[in-house]
Structures are given as structure tokens and as C-alpha cells.
């Protein structure tokens, strides 16, 4: 995997949209899509609506089972549907007794801390890589790319030993949120993304600021960073989704199950013989909602980021 370096300024979504909008003016609309879908009612139009409904049914509707089950009274396999039976909040009450909100708090602390650290670390590194020239730059770039090629799973076992006894400082991070936060700090992807973006900021802006006697840290904080807001948005959303999806890392960084994040804690609810699938689903809703909110609020950044990362990689 080469660097999915990103350049949100030239991200394909934006130019592509303007290009096809231009194309729409000169060429008939039926050439807008590869399959030549018609926008007027007809057989093809009806077929497309049918296929869209099937796609929704396969990819989106199953999520309704989570919500329906979480708010239903005693759902087993048979009660699963897309609307709750006998709506109730009992499942959430039981989940609360099983400490779901403690796990959720763990998750929030970890996600917030790791995201802040990740962004701060990436901004600093990207500033050095994009706006400075120094010896060994290519080597450093390669190192960061290597971190992306190095699957977390592969280093899981030695990493769990390292977390129990960090070299040099000799700290035991197991059972603390730092055990999850610190390994997520250096994410090559986010460093590359911000580096590519910062490279496109005109030198003139920097030179003008330097003539005014602006120092390095103020340059980064007051000149470069405000210009990077779109890239920070993309890095933030992708980073959040990546952090919230972590499973193995919270698992190996924990000392006992109370240290779990909410996504890992679902396995405790599942294996608990005293709670039904309704409680498990209540837990799933709690684990699902934050990513849902982030996605719905910032979906354009996310989609732009994925598309740009891939096409420029």
C-alpha cells in the first residue's frame, strides 16, 4: 500500500462535480452516468428505483433491527423486526446495571484523547515535512509510510508486552486509557494527508508573515493551521472512525474487563447468560450512535477523504 496521500483541495469529489455539471450543459443528461440512467419515468427508471430499494434493504435496513430490538420488550430471534414491539426502555436500564455507561465513558475518553493527540502530532509532523527542508526527509517519510503498512494485528502480541513495560521510562500502561491512546498517536495516514495539504499553501503567505517577524510556533498556529481547516476536518472524521473501530488494541491494553471500551464490552453482554439479546442491542445502540452522529454531521469530509486518499494513492 503506498501512501494514500490526500489533497482535499484537489479532491476528486469537487472538481468531478463541477466537471459533470459542465458536461451536463453541453451533453444530454443520459450521458451523465456509465449506465445512461434516464431521469424521466419509464421502465429503466422504475427498475432503478427497485434496485435502489433493494440496496437500501440490504445495507441500511438491517440497522433498524438494532434499534427495534433495543427498544422492544424481550426480543429473541422471533421478535426481531423493524419496528419495536411493546416499546420499552427496560433494556437500557439493565444495560446500565451492567455498567454500559462506564464502558461508554471509557470509549469517549479514549476517542477524545486519541483524536486530539493524533491531530496534534500529525499537524506538527506535517508542518516539518511540508514547510521545511532537512536532511533525512525522505527517510522520515518512508518511516511514516511504513507505520501504515504495519498492521496493528501483526504487532499485537509484542505490543501488549511493551504496554506492560514501556521501554526507557518503564511505565505500566495496561489498564489505563493511555495504553490505548498513545499507540494511536502516530497515524501515518493523517500525517500524509496534512503534509500534502500544507504543501499547497502558497509560500508567499509564509514569507509575508516572516517579514512581519512571526516565529515558527506562531507561524504554525496562526498562519498555517487556520488555512488547514478542511484537511483537519477530513483527518478528524477518518481518525474518529478508525479509533472507534479499534477492537484488538483496547482488548490487549486492558487489565480486566472494566477497562474495556464499549465496542469490546459488547462481548461481555453477549456471553452474559442473564441478559437477553435486547440488552445486547441496547449496548449496540450506545456503541453505534456516536459514529452515526459524526458521520451524518461530517459525511462529506469522510467520503471526500476516502475517495481522495484512494485516487491519489
Amino acid at each position: 500500500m503506498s501512501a494514500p496521500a490526500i489533497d482535499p483541495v484537489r479532491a476528486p469529489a469537487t472538481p468531478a462535480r463541477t466537471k459533470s455539471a459542465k458536461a451536463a450543459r453541453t451533453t444530454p443528461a443520459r450521458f451523465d452516468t456509465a449506465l445512461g440512467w434516464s431521469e424521466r419515468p419509464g421502465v429503466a427508471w422504475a427498475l432503478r428505483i427497485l434496485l435502489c430499494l433493494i440496496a437500501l434493504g440490504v445495507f441500511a435496513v438491517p440497522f433498524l433491527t438494532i434499534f427495534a430490538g433495543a427498544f422492544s420488550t424481550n426480543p429473541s430471534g422471533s421478535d426481531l423486526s423493524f419496528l419495536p414491539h411493546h416499546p420499552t426502555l427496560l433494556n437500557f436500564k439493565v444495560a446500565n446495571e451492567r455498567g454500559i455507561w462506564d464502558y461508554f465513558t471509557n470509549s469517549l475518553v479514549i476517542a477524545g484523547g486519541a483524536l486530539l493527540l493524533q491531530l496534534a502530532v500529525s499537524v506538527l509532523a506535517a508542518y516539518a515535512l511540508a514547510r521545511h527542508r532537512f536532511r533525512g526527509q525522505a527517510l522520515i517519510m518512508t518511516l511514516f509510510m511504513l507505520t501504515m503498512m504495519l498492521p496493528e494485528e501483526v504487532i499485537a502480541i509484542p505490543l501488549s508486552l511493551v504496554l506492560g513495560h514501556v521501554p526507557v521510562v518503564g511505565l505500566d500502561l495496561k489498564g489505563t486509557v493511555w495504553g490505548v491512546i498513545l499507540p494511536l498517536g502516530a497515524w501515518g495516514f493523517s500525517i500524509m494527508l496534512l503534509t500534502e495539504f500544507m504543501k499547497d499553501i502558497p509560500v508567499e503567505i509564509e514569507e509575508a508573515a516572516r517579514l512581519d517577524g512571526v516565529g515558527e510556533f506562531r507561524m504554525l498556529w496562526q498562519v498555517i493551521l487556520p488555512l488547514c481547516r478542511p484537511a483537519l476536518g477530513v483527518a478528524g472524521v477518518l481518525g474518529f472512525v478508525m479509533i472507534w473501530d479499534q477492537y484488538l488494541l483496547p482488548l490487549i491494553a486492558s487489565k480486566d474487563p472494566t477497562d474495556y471500551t464499549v465496542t469490546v464490552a459488547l462481548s461481555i453482554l453477549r456471553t452474559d447468560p442473564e441478559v437477553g439479546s435486547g440488552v445486547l442491542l441496547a449496548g449496540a445502540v450506545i456503541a453505534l450512535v456516536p459514529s452515526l452522529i459524526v458521520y451524518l454531521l461530517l459525511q462529506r469530509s469522510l467520503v471526500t477523504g476516502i475517495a481522495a486518499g484512494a485516487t491519489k494513492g
Partner: protein
Amino acid sequence: MTATTPAPAHRARRIGTRSVLPWLFLAPALLLALLFKFWPMAKGIWLSLFKVRPFLGDQWVGLDNYTRVLSDHRFQDAVGHTLLLGIGISLGGILVGFALALLLEGQSRSLKLVRTAVFLPVVTATAVVGELWRLLYYPTSDGVINHALGFLGLGPTQFLDNPGTALWSTMAMGIWMSAPYNMVIILAGLAGVDRSLYEAAAMDGVSLWQRLRYITLPAIRPALGIVLTLAAIRGLRVFTEVYVLTGGGPAGSTEVWMTRAYTLGFTRNDIGGASAASVVLLCVTLLLTVTVNYFRKRGDAR
């Protein structure tokens, strides 16, 4: 990669005094990467050569761990499962993603809404997806999928509890999770296709199939290459999906390389063997990355 910004003369003169600065900015990232990525990697390679015995001191065993892991039949089975899952999820995800992209390409508001909804599996944490699919796969005729199969006159299937179907069921979930992600990348590729080509093709009277085959596919070939690479590498290290959905069972029928290494390392406390298994996976991943990059670079040069 070097900075593309030309350094002005006055900056070049002062470079000596400021040569420490970049390293100051890089320090946090480098420190974290060294401590939590490269050091564990080195430690893993080192440990794979030892019989790790807590409190007794490690014992050098050379390549014993490797021969043990590679000749273990459960690992050999896991290789087969990993390859089958990896290839199945990659190809299936691309096919479904391509179909989705062709279906949902367009500018209208309603299409954007559908795309937003279809993308949900990607943003959902794998653990949550796993719990969702366990319920969809509920083994009696009450389960959602079995209920739907009932309408078609098919009996209830024990998707996850039957060694014959568990791996395929896991693969279906993997495809479901990766297809929308691939869709976004392919859509970006489709947006770059020159519309006038479609128009010209229509004038020449080519069929829809020919249009797809000779205009669309070549245009999105780079996007497909990236999707395939990412999918193949992700396929090799598949862990959470399997661990959450089946835990490797029933009867080891869904055991993949990483779940096996995890069991060896954390349940059986065979750190040396687990490290050796991880190093093997690392080598295969790197080899795959390098090979794919080589072919992609050659393809670009042409």
C-alpha cells in the same frame, strides 16, 4: 519525497540555525511511532526466536518456533481459510461495490440520500456489525434471514453453527462491510470519465455492454487497482470480523491466521510461537505490498 516549495535565498542562508527545528516538530510523531510500532515489531522478531518463559528467562531456540507454526495443521487450515476469506471478501466486495456505484452514480438529491444510507456499514464499528449479523443469522426460522428464506420455501439454515456454512457466512458479512467503501472509491473513478466519450459511443451505436467494457472499465482501472490492493492486504490480517462473529469456531472452521496467533499468544501463553506466526504474516503483507506496488508502477509507466 522532498518539499516542493522552493526555498528562498534568505531561508537557505539561515538553514544552519534552523536545522534543529524540523526535528522538534517531528519528535512526538517519531517517538510514538518508535515506541509503539517499530519497537514492538523488532521485539516480535526477536521473541520469535526464543522460547519465552516468564520468570525463568527466555531460551534461544532459533527457527524452531517457525517450523512448529508452519507444520501445525491448525495453522495450515488457517492459511486456507485466510486466503479464501481474503479473496472472497476482496472480489465480492469489489463486484458488489462496482454494481452499487453503477446504480447510485448521479447528481440527484435522492441518490445522495441513498448513498449516505448505503454507506452506513463502513462507519459502524466492526464489533457492532458483528453483533448485528449474529442476529440476522439467528439459526431458527425466527431469524431475519431465515425468515426471508422461509418465504422462498427454504428451510432454516444454521449459518454460523454449521462448519460447512460458517466461513461463507463470515465472508458475506465481510463483503457487506467492504462493498460501500469500494463504492465510494469507484464512484470517484466514474466521476472522472469523460462524458463526451459516452456520447460519441452512442452515436457509433455501441451496446451498453461494450460501453462498459471499453470506456468505463479502462477509465476506472486505476481506482480498481487501489481497491484490490487495499482489500487484499486487509483480507490477510482479518481478525475482528472473525473474532466477534464466530471466534474461529465451530470446530475451527473459520479459524484464520490472526485468530490462531491470538489464541496461541494470549490463551496458551506461547509468546514465541505467536510472534513467529505474526512475523510470517508481516513478511507476506510486505511482500504483497511491494509486488503490487511494483506492478502498479510498471502499469503507470506504460
